[in-house]
């Protein structure tokens, strides 16, 4: 298997990156017409790694057909989805692959300027990116005359300030414009009216980092990696109760079981698996009997969850699921932007119910109430954040209803057994 994303730690340095074939993809792209580059990306079958898995080539075509200018490339490095740390790892180990990817996008989409919207919690990565930018400018990969092509492309790093919703692309754009990061109405989509009303491509760090390989090795080679419906390598950040947590670069479609038991070394301390979240906290939890599911957009959805960011969160047999559910809803309540009624009011309500269940003050009917509130949120919110909160909560109830009932009846078994403090 070829690793082209995390590959080797030495790539942080531009010379090493060049030795490993770095910036050749950009060189090739610059020899092509912008439209041809878009075509190539479309042919590669690349799907966005930001969560929704939308075909990148198609999104690019939408922007390519809008004549307005100036135009912008925005790298979504907000990585706010709890459990996710793949973009961070990528920037840590291989910042130039991202810069090269952005420069390719800049050429293909005729944009002269790019911004990396980096979450505030990553100050170290900011330093890494700034250093890499300096190197790339010094070598002429960025700047007024990219690789002698006469084209201009430069990148600025913009720090977020702690708001999960700013990962949503329209909220991100508002935030980048200096506003409260609340989602915008769509249409118009950012590809037609994004930053300052101009065509703007928002792509995830990992998505953009796939481009150098596609350009260098060709779309066909790329399309041959992993699952044909969603080709390429995927970064899987694995956390929780596993022996070797970390980020694994594996072909799309690698079974969840293989990720947990081979790459991440299995459950910590030899315990049994109780539950796993396959795609970051917004993705509904899966039960142990579902882990043969291949990790690609289609299969995970079929299993009743979503691939999302690909963040695998593993829980062993001694984990209190109600507690996990409560913490999940605390997160959503805290991060709801407040724009729409069901999310603003509903996430807090779900949290309140879970809190009383977790603290043994729940009562009969609470589970149905939880489900009811979830149903009233789901499908009625302005953006997918609220849906995520509802479907995450429903996921826990679906697979662990017994545990909720038991909590209401007799409190938390795990607290009792382990003498853990109440939250």
């Amino acid at each position: 298997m070829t690793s082209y994303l995390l590959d080797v730690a030495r790539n942080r340095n531009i010379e090493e990156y060049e030795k490993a074939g770095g910036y050749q993809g950009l060189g090739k792209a610059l020899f092509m017409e912008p439209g041809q580059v878009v075509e190539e990306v479309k042919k590669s079958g690349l799907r966005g790694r930001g969560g929704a898995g939308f075909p990148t080539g198609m999104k690019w075509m939408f922007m390519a057909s809008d004549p307005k200018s100036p135009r912008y490339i925005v790298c979504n490095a907000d990585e706010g989805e709890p459990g996710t740390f793949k973009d961070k790892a990528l920037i840590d180990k291989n910042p130039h692959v991202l810069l090269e990817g952005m420069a390719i996008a800049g050429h293909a989409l005729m944009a002269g300027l790019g911004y990396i919207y980096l979450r505030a919690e990553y100050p170290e990565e900011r330093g890494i990116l700034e250093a890499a930018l300096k190197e790339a400018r010094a070598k002429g990969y960025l700047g007024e005359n990219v690789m002698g092509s006469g084209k201009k492309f430069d990148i600025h790093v913009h720090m977020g300030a702690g708001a999960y919703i700013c990962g949503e692309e329209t909220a991100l754009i508002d935030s980048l414009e200096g506003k409260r990061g609340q989602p915008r109405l769509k249409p118009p989509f950012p590809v037609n009216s994004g930053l300052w009303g101009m065509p703007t491509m928002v792509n995830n760090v990992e998505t953009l980092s796939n481009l150098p390989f596609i350009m260098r090795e060709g779309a066909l080679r790329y399309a041959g990696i992993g699952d044909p419906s969603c080709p390429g390598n995927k970064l899987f950040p694995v956390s929780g109760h596993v022996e070797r947590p970390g980020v694994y670069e594996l072909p799309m479609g690698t079974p969840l079981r293989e990720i947990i038991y081979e790459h991440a070394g299995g459950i910590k301390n030899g315990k049994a698996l109780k539950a796993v979240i396959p795609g970051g906290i917004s993705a509904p939890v899966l039960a142990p009997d579902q882990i043969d599911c291949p990790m690609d957009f289609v299969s995970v959805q079929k299993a009743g969850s979503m691939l999302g960011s690909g963040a695998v969160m593993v829980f062993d047999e001694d984990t209190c699921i109600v507690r996990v559910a409560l913490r999940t809803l605390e997160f959503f309540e805290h991060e709801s932007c407040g724009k729409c009624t069901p999310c603003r009011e509903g996430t807090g309500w779900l949290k309140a119910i879970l809190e009383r269940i977790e603290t043994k003050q729940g009562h009969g009917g609470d589970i149905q109430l939880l489900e009811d509130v979830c149903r009233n949120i789901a499908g009625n919110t302005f953006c997918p954040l609220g849906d995520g909160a509802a479907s995450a909560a429903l996921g826990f109830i679906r697979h662990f209803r017994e545990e909720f009932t038991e909590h209401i009846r007799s409190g938390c078994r795990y607290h009792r057994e382990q003498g853990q403090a109440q939250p």
Partner: protein
Amino acid sequence: MILITINGKKIELDGPVTIFEAARRNGIDIPSLCHHPALELWGGCRMCLVEIEKMPRLQTSCTVKAADGMAVYTETPRVVAARKAMLEFLLINHPLQCPTCDKAGECALQDLTVRYGAVAGRFEEGKRTFPENVDDPVIVRNMERCIMCTRCVRMCDGVQGAFAIGVVGRGAGSHVEPFSGGRYNCEYCGNCLNVCPVGAIMSRLHRYTYRPWQMDKTVKTICSFCGVGCTILLEVRGDAIQKVSPAFGKGVNNGLLCGRGMFGYGYAGSPERLKTPLVRKDGKLVPASWDEALALAARRLLEVKAQHGGRAIAGIAGGRCTNEENYAFQKFMRAGLGSNNIDSTARLGLLHAQDLLEGIFGQGAAANVIRGIPHSDAVLVVACDPTRTNPVMGLQVRAASKAGKKVVAIGHAPGLKRHMTHHLSAAFGHEGIALAGLLRELLRQKKALPGENPEFEAAIMGFSELPSPEEVRRLAGVPEAALTQAAEALKDVSTSSIIAGRELAASMDAKRNFMLLAAIGYVLNSRFFLVSEHPNEQGLIDMGCTPDMLPGGRPLALQTFRERCEHEWGARLDPEPGLTLMEMFEQAGGAIRAMYIMGENPAFNLPGRKKIKEALEKKLDFLVVQDIFLTETASLADVVLPSKAWSEKEGTYTNLEKRIQKLAQATGKNHEAGMEDWRILALIGRLAGLGNMPYASASDIIDEIARVSPLHAGLRYEDLEEDGMMWPYKGKPLRMSGGMQPLPAAKAAATLDRREEDTGQTGPALVIEKPLFHSGSLSRHSGALLDIMGGPEAKMAPGTAAGLGICEGGSVKISTAEGEMVLKAKLEKGLPAGAIFAGNNFGDAGALGLFGYELEPGSKTPVPRAEGLEITPL
């Protein structure tokens, strides 16, 4: 053409609109909380969800555009369930204080709860709370009632452009506040509370005084403060105005108001209103019966007329009085007393401005629609701040700016600070120089002139010595780059609007200024707007309250027309024009022996105050004043006759667009104290055997106006429904526009007088500030406006203050040849250096009293001058 169905009903749409709008137009009511037609789309409350065939999710009808073939369902079980769910979400944290909430009865949340059924209280935890905030004198905030629809904020930012309130915090903790978290530092337009669907932001003026269903009536009328003429709704209980509210979708203002219109209504119910007529006995004004006062007035006027002739009597009409009253007034003066000495404060600039413009473009040159302003490519604002003087017109300039149009301001216009694309910061009184420089740059940068009027173009090209940018900088203090860039921005526009202030005409250079303005207007294909401070300043001009014009803007000199009036009025008219405003006072005690003043306060509102007071007090044999308050002028009168306030009478106002709009009587039905101004005149006329005024109502007078004034020919009171009627009404203007001609004096006038003028750098200058929260001397009787701005102040930039040794809040003595005054200093960033701003609104501190004047020779417009200005900190 777009065809859709809503609930099975076929609907045709000729353009893309939202489903919500399509439904509304067809009488299908979709509930909403966050949507408001005046505001940017939001889509947050999720109340308007509907089902659309082939779309799996419910959609917000307020944001989704109707597309051909859509089948929409607005009340399916699924939709109703979702709406109930949204209501339940909103109510879990809503305090349910309905019994003590002023909004109860007109609360959208309450209404929707009734419509969809209350949801059982499934929420068990404590509700979110925010303490009520009453730090502000007129606005109270109850943020726990807020449903986060953000209508207030979208109004404040997007429409009002004030950016005074905003959402603070995130998610469930969000709430709306001004920057301070307490008192507002804003324009007090009140539009935020007008769009609040619940009781979260409310007016304190009528707090806890009534419930909406206890209102006796809601009366649609016109605001009484400025020349925009906003449509307002007066909510009345008993005989008192409880509240002013806007009428979205109606009027010049489409539901928007300014602080004066929104909160200033209190003067009508003020206890300081005159309650009886007063007559002077032994040097003192004492209450008298109507019979006594009217008889005295009639007798004394007749005596003066008999002794000195009608020409010895002068009359001042009122810009806050109706057309009917002003018409009756000039008829009383001319036909009854035999005097053409009729004028008004329109003489301070508006009248001259209009004369000059009409002299070039023809009658009606400034009759343009305010709501059209944002549709022009550029707006040029000259020597005024429409956001202060005519605030709702100012909003249209801001709307233009928001729509990406060019907004160029010449002179001081602080309310447009965030909305102008170019600022030519000419020193006060030097705006004309900037105009000249702008014209020169436009002529230099433009490829060709329009070619419509060769004669006029020749006049434009004939301007000698238009100043270069460098000279403009030196003479008026406008940076060169600003001038060239503004010209660059303007040169290719295809339509534009020009808004000009009366100061441009209250100048020795008025002719030059207006010729330049006209030339620029011609080059830029402009529509003109003249700011106007009083609600019927335009109307009184049209009604003939000027020394040389009869109703309909017909010159007194025109014999045929004079005869027509003589015939109608049954009296001979003096063919000689009368005296102008300032001349009347100057000649008091000489040619002028008596004065009749209706709804005006010249002892306060004019420069040269000392002399005017002296004239009124000592030089006249007799003075009658009709007013609603005992003003500075009324207190000098021999007879004071209480009149009705604007809310107490019928009649019409003509706004600055020259749109006639109807007032409606809302209060004062049983108010014995005051009479309509026209009625008082008619009664005196009858007693004195003067004139012929057999009116029983305002509409009787309208009928007469329609007979007399060719401009108003055929106008009927009943025609003035909804949005009134625009100039030239049903009649004919004197001269159709199109026949434009350069002013005779244009060539000479446009030659710049190159005296080294004071550019503001040499020493401090005193400027009369036109505050947003007050209007002449009337608004000092409005409690709420006093709460917002309680007294006079001298405003200046911190730098200016430092140079003069003045500190914030300190007392400053301002003295001139005319007098002196002590004011509290208020430092404000961004004011032009060297300028001291003081208003003319409060009692002893009306800064106009520090000004003398000089008359512009042709028009006799007083040009105020503050000679010997000295500013000293105390």
